[in-house]
């Protein structure tokens, strides 16, 4: 198994993706963080901060998959922009939608 996988789709830019070893390490980290996610919900002392903790771990997993498995770390910035821009708009709209429908009870009615 070769250490480096050439990026056939990169064309003239000729980016290289991660090594197989890196992929396996990322998978191990994902497994570990998933285990931690499940673990923290059973630790009563963490309940005041469990929601931000879970969200942080979820974002970390999301970023690892996007950066390494989806190769955004290695590809051009244009692809990152095409993904992250809509992602931020989606997140903003989701927060606004929840706020306006009273899920956060920030504005009230």
């Amino acid at each position, binding site marked *: 198994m070769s250490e480096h996988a050439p990026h056939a*789709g990169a064309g003239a830019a000729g980016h290289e993706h991660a090594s197989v070893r890196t992929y396996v390490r990322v998978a191990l980290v994902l497994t570990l963080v998933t285990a931690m996610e499940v673990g923290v919900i059973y630790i009563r002392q963490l309940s005041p901060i469990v929601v931000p903790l879970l969200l942080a771990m979820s974002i970390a997993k999301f970023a690892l998959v996007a950066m390494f498995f989806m190769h955004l770390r290695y590809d051009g910035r244009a692809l990152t922009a095409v*993904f992250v821009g809509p992602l931020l708009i989606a997140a903003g709209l989701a927060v606004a*939608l929840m706020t306006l429908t009273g899920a956060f009870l920030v504005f009230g009615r």
Partner: protein
Amino acid sequence: MTPEHGARAVAEADPATFQSSPPTSLAGLASLATTASSWIATVDHKRIGILYGVTAFAFFLIGGLEALIIRLQLAGPHRAVVSAERFNELFTMHGTTMVFLAIMPFSSAFFNYLVPLLIGARDVAFPRLNALSYWIFLFGGLFLNASFLVGAAPDGGWFGYTSLTLRQFSPGLNIDFWMLSLQILGASSIMAGVNFIVTILNMRAPGMTLMRMPVFVWMTLTVQFLIVLAFPPITVGLIFLTFDRFFGTHFYDVLAGGDLHLWQHLFWIFGHPEVYILILPAFGIVSEVLPTFARKPLFGAPVVIYSGILIGFFGFGVWSHHMFAAGMGPVADAAFAIATMLIAIPTGVKIFNWLATLWGGQLRGTVALHYAIGLIALFTIGGLSGVMHASPPVDLQQTDTYFVVAHFHYVLIGGSLFGLLAGAFYWWPKITGRLLDERWGRLQFWLMFVGFNLTFFPQHYLGAIGMPRRIYTYGPATGWAFWNLVSTIGAFGIGLSILVFAILAVRSLISGPIAPADPWDGRTLEWRTSSPPPVHNFDVIPPVYGRDTFWREKHGDSRGRRPPPLPPVADPHGIHLPAPSFWPIVAAAGVVIGGIGALTHLWVVFAGVAILLIGAWAFALEHHGNPAHADQTGLLGVDHRKLAMWVFIGSECLLFGTLIATYLAYKGRSVIGPHPHEILNIPLTTISTFDLLMSSLLMVLALAAVQRGDRVQARLWLLGTAIFGAIFLGFQAWEFTEFVHEGLTLQQNLFGSTFFVLTGFHGGHVTLGVALLLTLWILDLRGKLSVADAPKVEIVGLYWHFVDVVWIVIFTVVYLIP
């Protein structure tokens, strides 16, 4: 160019296609059949543009006819031209038709015909996908209008507010037609959006940097991003409505804890960007027309571009100004009022830039320029009344009155339609190879201008004195009769002007003077090629010297300096033209047959799905192994397909973002159990989550194996990924079955509705991913997956990883967060 290409080039580019006289013999019939077949199978962007234009005009006539009947009904008190029920159908269909079947596809006609020419490309990035978008649009439009034939035209308004559109209050097929056709049309728009984003970003001629692109191309790019990002929220809203109507879920059921405002939010999150989807193409057209006929560069072109982008971006943050009367509270009202007022700034910037372009120019009073200046005047009036609505206290007085009807018609006719007509007169010679009669054209303009103002200006007054929208009649004591009569007379003036336009168009096609390549002394690349252009657009990819590159070539810059001649640009792929294909129309037929089945019988749905799958399968594999399709690397150094997948994933972010937001917004609102904490099985889901995460690892290993040509490992990892995906689906099926046994169904409560729809849609995506993986695996087994196919594996991989990251979020917010 090969002889076959050349032959097809001649066949497809022949302007006689729309000028030929009727056949009089069997040979003539055979020729007609061949011509029809060539149009059905065409993937040429110019032909597809013409198809969009002709279809949009036909739907525009239908929508216009509906408007005239509405105006006849309202011409005086107590008129009985139509019943109240028919009136509801007419205003619903008029709005829906004009927005989705006339103005949007008119813009698409220009995108299709002109964008490749303006950027120096030979076609769009995905010509067959382009054809598929058109056929889905056509069938979706026919499907919507077929509702008239069965006496069940939609009657809930183009906004389709719940609870009016729920089964309880609209039991017939009317709303079903509306919501299904909108979903079909939305799919068409998103496909086209992805296609044009890739085309513009990745297929520009060498030297055409982003800031050298014509403003129309910039506005097209902005609009395509709006489409791919704004349509998913309304798609989700329509999915919820479909589930509520067909399967008894509770998304909009107040008694079950649902919130009617949810629909309004989802509709207007789409609906306000939709306004910019309708107006920005017209702004782009005007930004091309004014410099040509003022013989001056567009004043402050970069600022016009940035303003367009800002308008698009702000467009996502103002939707709730449509809901001031819904009772959102003072903070939300204030926030959306400020955002709405802010959006007037970039819009005003454009107006001033256009005026500055005209100032001191050597104006030529063509019909196109008349329409462009008409847009500036009329859109400004519509914009000013729009700023009035931005103030909540004022809006509360104006909402649901004819003042609002006047406002949005000044924006959508005075803005969008005037801009599109400017474009029609401007580019008609390029598209048809014939000139339009300018003298009669000016008469047509003035008929339209006077008729339009006569129709809609009095409606400001009618609204101000209290005439509500959507009423089918009124009494004589209201004092509304005179101005309604004036408005009706004006509407027939608009109708007459459209009739004159149609006559002018037909006369031009039959006997109009032949147009030269550059009749207006144009500034952009489309005028550099013949009228109409050859099928391959340009014999040689044109050189790009800067903004207004063709003008500089002819006249030099502001000091008269001409650019040094550039060597011809080598076309790395040669002149490759896509072959015609029947599969787009087959796949599109499958979509609409599925829609028909949803209203008739389940077996028809299955038939539609089967046809869609066959069409999609053949579509996907039609050119597999064709070396001409192997390298699709574009200007950004990225494969077109990969860029397209990323854009699609961006769109999917909005789809899943809306689904997840709805789940969270409704969390804890179920009025009966079971509730999430009573039923969710976290240990089991942790295992399935681990399984899906590991499938992503196998996917990257499969891609690496394909890229290095290791077929054994490629096969192993592809199959492994598919199996892991299937295992995840197995877990999901088992979980769903358990929940149903424990009393949680789609219909049980709000939690059941949101949970099953969210996770079910994710499961549907996983299922599609498994199908794609198995397709690749079978291709590999048959020795048809080579290193050259690595981009295909990569885009399937991207889709798979996206499904994985979506689950990462779902696992946290649905299962883990208490």
